[in-house]
């Protein structure tokens, strides 16, 4: 079965084929939700932003420039929605990291083997995750966005520069200060040494 590229699927959507949108959604819903959740950290808000992102992809499909990458465009839309949401969310404060809902033994090479679950290690990992989230929280938004896109989504610097709308050198600079910022936060909480 031929795997159509994102750009081919989007052209089909432009031509009025709704099934192609379904394929695009199924392909990108997980990476998109991961990215948005790591920025917003509220499941409900992340779900709304993801839904709105796909709606905008549908509505603005005819504005997609030939030669561009679909993923870059999609992430741009999602990032702008996250920023809009953060501006409007004056009643909400992101203070406490949400407790991960996925049990420790549900992921990784030992997935499916409950005997492999180590409660002490799990607790340690949860504390570390919470500390990393607090460290990310303390970063300026532009550094946090770059860090999430690079470290957790694995995008290239060139693509990140396109998404956030600044030169590649600026992205790398933000990454440098962001990495140092998170490390400083973890040193402050005693998770590592200088």
């Amino acid at each position: 079965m031929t795997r159509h590229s994102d750009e081919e699927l989007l052209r089909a959507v432009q031509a009025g084929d709704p099934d192609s949108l379904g394929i695009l959604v199924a392909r990108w819903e997980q990476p998109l939700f991961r990215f948005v959740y790591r920025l917003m950290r509220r499941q409900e808000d992340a779900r709304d932003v993801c839904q709105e992102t796909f709606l905008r992809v549908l509505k603005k499909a005819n504005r997609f420039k030939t030669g561009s990458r679909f993923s870059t465009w999609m992430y741009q839309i999602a990032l702008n929605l996250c920023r809009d949401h953060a501006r409007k969310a004056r009643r909400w404060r992101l203070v406490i990291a949400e407790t991960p809902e996925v049990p420790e033994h549900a992921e990784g090479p030992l997935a499916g083997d409950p005997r492999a679950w180590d409660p002490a290690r799990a607790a340690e990992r949860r504390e570390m995750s919470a500390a990393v989230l607090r460290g990310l929280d303390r970063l300026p938004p532009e550094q946090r966005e770059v860090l999430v896109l690079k470290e957790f989504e694995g995008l290239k610097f060139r693509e990140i520069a396109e998404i956030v709308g600044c030169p590649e050198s600026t992205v790398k600079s933000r990454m440098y200060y962001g990495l140092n910022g998170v490390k400083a936060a973890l040193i402050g909480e005693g998770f590592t040494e200088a």
Partner: protein
Amino acid sequence: MGCKHWKNDWVARLYDELEPDEERRLVAHLEDCAECRATLEGLSSSRELLQEGAPRVPATPRVVVLQSRWSWPSLGAFAAGAACAALVFGLGWFAGPAQNETLELLKNDLFAMTERVRQLEGNRDVTPAAMRKELDNLERRLTRERVQDLEQLVRSFTMAERRTGNWMDQTDNRLVLLALRQDPSLQER
């Protein structure tokens, strides 16, 4: 100044995104610069900490693509639309000019919701459970985004009621005084 001008190259090297000539230049520099070697090692350890403490993401909710088809509005959607129109008209009557912008936003949301209900009802492939879920999402969004606006509108209603009540009280008093002037015997009843 130190070696800060190498920071972009450090970061690029960390993620294997250096061009070959850039890589050669940096490697040559690293051989002679302990400070840069230490900085690169520090960045590498930061990355390890991030990977170790990578925030877990909950299970991704499925995004369902619902294809809307044009259809005559159902009785339910029509009633919802009429109720929304009545509500908005009623709010506009009481809210006053100062709340017009708030009211406009609320009106847009209510009409968008009504339109969505109409689309969902027109699509025979949508299950009742999917439709309920969609409506719950819409309602949550409306509630969250407009709760402050709604609170403001409720305050306006209360103030309008008070004003109206006050006026009515005053009118009552005036009417009583007028009646007593005309017929003082009324006071004895």
